[in-house]
């Protein structure tokens, strides 16, 4: 535990921070190629309608238009999606996803046709020349209504696309044992990713006939989806990822890559497609809105006895990842607490709203808002200190979760919560109309994909003749420093300086498949793969050195391009046996033992879930932590000012402390936005907040300095005992703020975001009581 690292856990100057600040990074939109066409997408302006007529004639005839495509031009336009998450209860859904809408549109913004032209102005003009006639169909926008038998059906004959449940203990008995019970309903918003960089990319056909697509991708494995649509072998499509200007799950599903592949394939010309900010709003998936109903009971001594939760999420018009997100919600529904009796029932429901899918937090933060609101109210009912109450119930190593998964890492929840609260410092006073309050919230969030997905990640590491190293890994750099982490890990293990290690990443035909940069898996998976490969290379070197000096390899150390005897072996006679790394590499090469390794890291594998009842482990491990807030609420207007904020997580082991803090601050800010102001509003399927002057995210003026507390238990499953922090960092923010508002004004907000208007109404309701 006490091992000191040279590089790991330090504040590492990044590969690209300076370039980002100076505007030197080449993002996806910055690429251009000679003869490149510019593309735009023609989209539905109806939420639910039949396409009675689509006429592309005038658009095609426009001077400068090179290619106009509709569904009939797409080799394989439809794919039937029988996602995991459809259970015995729901049955086979057979929701059809379509590249371009053929006969029917199911949400406002659905893609219908593609245009590529000599320049963007012509492409835009061509969009206006496309003629379309719709016949409106019945539509449904409320997921609670959409569950009912008579509701209009979006696909097939059932709008419920997934159902999950948890049963642990005896729920009736659990509530009978409770001295206090809190039962409340909650709602969470449809959050927009609002990444700075739009979805963008460039495609071309190379001299080998391969379709190349260079775009901002969280999942470069989408080359397979492009190949399937084009009817090409997977080997004929190559995805080259770029440095990503923000994703948060927004670049996890298909974005521009299929359209780019199609247009380059059909036109034979390079093509660029960048979504407009408005298009990012109304055409791209959002975080699923949730309806949550919670009932939680505890004894007068503060021990939780039972928890029942009913969850309904709005999947929107197509089946993307909402069934998976719902699994996360179901498993995380208890919060990081040991509860003997648990019952969870969860549904995800199709509507004619914009589709919902991946977003940082992925089902874990919606339930966190509810379970931490419940915990706060229970503590009040019990007149117990909210931290003392939680301490009696925190999950700890060795405990079993509601789905019978044993926690195998440290949880450090008491430390995280105490330190987050302490980091707030002295409490502000407030005034007649401005009330100050404090709150905190704890959360847990898995890192790594669901274990039944049998996740793997590959990395290749070598040593060059001069002792420097090259790392190849398919992992995209989402801005979290994913490449930098691999560099640090390999440099640490091979005893090199950071700038002696070069990382090549995110190219589906050049780098070994490392999987997605999603699910807080990048460091855990690709970091472990790089660690394994580097350890293999070190072994090659030490074995060779061992043969050269006649000392057992375990007594040798590799550092600063020298092979030493381990310190405790060091004596004057052994110093003579010190070898330079270059000498050893030369010796290896002479004997054909190339110092290189392609390693595969495999996450724990579990059997696929076959019923709607989740009763086995689903995740490899969890990250635990807490966030705390001090707010000032204006009781005349309902406005909230965040005065102080802190966030504390056990991240196992920092790889780069700067990046850990960056994730924690960014996660808090995005979670505060979810709690206080962000809401993508649709009215009867028509989006109303598709621009960033209506869809508001927090600015620097809305946030105080965020204090970060980094705890390192070294108990995680990642390299050096690291856990993931990307998503855990967002989960506890909204309930921390809402609990602080409750403390300030004596009123709880059950429907986030807690806008001034909602707080004003709640205060008025309290006064009128």
């Amino acid at each position, binding site marked *: 535990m006490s091992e000191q690292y040279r590089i790991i856990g330090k504040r590492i100057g990044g590969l690209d921070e300076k370039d980002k600040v100076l505007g030197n990074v080449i993002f996806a939109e910055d690429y251009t190629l000679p003869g490149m066409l510019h593309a735009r997408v023609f989209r539905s302006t109806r939420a639910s309608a039949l396409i009675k007529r689509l006429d592309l004639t005038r658009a095609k005839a426009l001077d400068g238009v090179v290619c106009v495509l509709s569904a009939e031009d797409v080799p394989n336009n439809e794919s039937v999606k029988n996602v995991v998450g459809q259970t015995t209860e729901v049955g086979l859904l057979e929701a059809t996803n379509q590249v371009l809408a053929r006969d029917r549109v199911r949400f406002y913004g659905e893609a219908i046709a593609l245009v590529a032209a000599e320049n963007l102005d012509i492409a835009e003009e061509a969009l206006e020349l496309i003629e379309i006639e719709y016949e409106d169909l019945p539509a449904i926008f409320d997921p609670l209504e959409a569950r009912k038998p008579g509701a209009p059906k979006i696909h097939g004959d059932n709008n419920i696309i997934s159902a999950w449940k948890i049963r642990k203990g005896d729920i009736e008995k659990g509530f009978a044992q409770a001295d206090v019970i809190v039962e409340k309903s909650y709602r969470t918003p449809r959050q927009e990713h609002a990444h700075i960089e739009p979805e963008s990319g460039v495609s071309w056909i190379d001299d080998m006939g391969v379709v190349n697509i260079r775009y901002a991708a969280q999942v470069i494995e989408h080359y397979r989806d492009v190949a399937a649509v084009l009817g090409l072998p997977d080997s004929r499509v190559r995805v080259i990822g770029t440095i990503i200007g923000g994703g948060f799950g927004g670049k996890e599903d298909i974005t521009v890559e299929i359209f780019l592949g199609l247009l380059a394939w059909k036109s034979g010309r390079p093509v660029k497609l960048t979504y407009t900010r*408005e298009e990012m709003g109304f055409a791209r998936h959002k975080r699923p809105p949730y309806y949550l109903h919670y009932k939680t009971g505890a004894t007068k001594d503060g021990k939780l006895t039972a928890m029942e939760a009913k969850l309904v999420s709005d999947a929107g018009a197509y089946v993307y990842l909402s069934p998976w997100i719902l699994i996360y919600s179901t498993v995380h529904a208890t919060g990081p607490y040991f509860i003997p009796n648990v019952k969870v029932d969860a549904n995800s429901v199709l509507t004619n709203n914009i589709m919902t899918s991946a977003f940082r937090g992925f089902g874990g933060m919606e339930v966190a808002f509810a379970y931490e609101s419940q915990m706060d109210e229970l503590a009040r009912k019990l007149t117990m200190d909210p931290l003392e109450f939680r301490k009696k119930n925190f999950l700890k190593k060795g405990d079993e979760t509601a789905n019978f998964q044993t926690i195998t890492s440290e949880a450090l929840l008491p430390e995280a919560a105490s330190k987050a609260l302490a980091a707030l410092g002295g409490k502000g006073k407030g005034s007649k109309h401005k009330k100050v309050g404090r709150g905190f919230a704890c959360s847990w969030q898995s890192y790594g994909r669901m274990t039944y997905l049998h996740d793997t990640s590959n990395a290749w590491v070598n040593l060059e003749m001069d002792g420097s190293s090259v790392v190849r890994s398919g992992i995209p750099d989402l801005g979290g420093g994913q490449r930098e982490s691999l560099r640090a890990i390999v440099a640490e293990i091979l005893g090199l300086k950071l700038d002696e290690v070069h990382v090549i990443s995110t190219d589906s035909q050049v780098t070994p498949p490392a999987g997605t940069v999603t699910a807080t898996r990048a460091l855990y998976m690709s970091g472990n793969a790089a660690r394994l490969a580097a350890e293999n290379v070190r072994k090659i070197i030490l074995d060779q050195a061992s043969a050269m000096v006649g000392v057992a390899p375990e007594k040798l150390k590799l550092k600063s391009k020298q092979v030493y005897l381990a310190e405790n072996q060091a004596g004057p006679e052994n110093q003579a046996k010190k070898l330079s790394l270059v000498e050893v590499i030369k010796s290896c090469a002479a004997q054909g033992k190339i110092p290189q390794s392609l390693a595969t890291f495999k996450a724990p594998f579990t059997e696929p879930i076959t019923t709607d009842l989740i009763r086995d482990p689903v995740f490899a491990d969890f990250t635990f932590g807490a966030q705390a807030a001090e707010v000032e609420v204006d009781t*005349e*207007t309902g406005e909230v000012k965040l005065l102080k904020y802190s966030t504390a997580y056990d991240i196992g082991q920092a790889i780069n402390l700067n990046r850990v803090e960056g994730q924690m601050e960014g996660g808090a800010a995005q979670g505060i936005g979810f709690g206080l102001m962000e809401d993508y509003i649709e009215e009867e399927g028509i989006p109303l907040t598709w*621009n960033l002057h209506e869809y508001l995210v927090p600015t620097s*003026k809305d946030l105080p300095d965020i204090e970060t507390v980094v705890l390192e238990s070294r108990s995680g499953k990642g390299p050096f005992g690291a856990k993931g922090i990307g998503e855990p960092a967002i989960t506890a923010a909204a309930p921390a703020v809402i609990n602080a508002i409750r403390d300030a004004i004596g009123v709880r907000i059950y429907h986030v975001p807690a*806008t*001034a208007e909602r707080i004003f109404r709640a205060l008025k309701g309290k006064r009128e009581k």
Partner: protein
Amino acid sequence: MKNFKYFRPKNLDELLAIKNELKEEARLLAGGSNLLVYIKEGSLKSGTLVDIGSLAALKGIREKDGYLEIGAAETIIDIMASPVVSEKLPFLRESLRVFANPLIRNISTVAGNIAEGSPIADTAPLLLVLNSEVVAASITGRRNIPIDDFFISLGKTEIKANEVIITIRIPIPETGRGKFVKLGLRKGTSCSVVSVAVWLIANGRGVEDIRIALGGVAPLPLRAVKTEALFRGKILNEHNIGELALEVTNEITPITDVRGGAAYRSEVSAALLSKAVRECLGMEE
């Protein structure tokens, strides 16, 4: 396809001539913080962009005959930085601190802000409580439009198709204190849900005169004259300020939109008015 011409007049005569010739087709470009949005979102597809951003005749911030005169092409940031404004009307400088954000303050103008006839233009309530005048010019001459007559209906002002705003004139108040409060959905860069400006001339806590203007609660920015009348002559305290301020809800006709409900706009208008009056009296903690 987008089809724009660009013209940069060398002097006021050229500006007035092209405005007279092209009327609405001549789109005045000072900072472009509205115009470029219309072009980018596609609601404006053609026209002649007449660049007045550096026209000397529309520049200058000066005191003249008891008025503060602000050239129509002066940016918000330059107004805030002006020593004349700081000395003669610090209320204006202070109030503009909540206008948009530094990037937009760097390019926007007061004239451009009010020219759109938007009910949520943040400078409108300020100009209203200061009894300002808008100087409009055309090839046939100039006229001074009292700010009370300036806003006609949603998106429409008194400025004719051949006219250009050249100066904003604000009488420098000899007495009184002002306060502008704005409620947005976040602290940095947001459109006003409701905004309230108050200019109060008080003797101790007795109201000699008061002017109240609001944004975001009617098709136009408006003066709350009935509420003003109620306040006049009253000796104010925390309690009766709140009571008197409620009158303002009878003078406004807010709507429900994505930024807020009509009922909330109405009720919060009274709250913001109370706050502004208390601030003018130095009662806020």
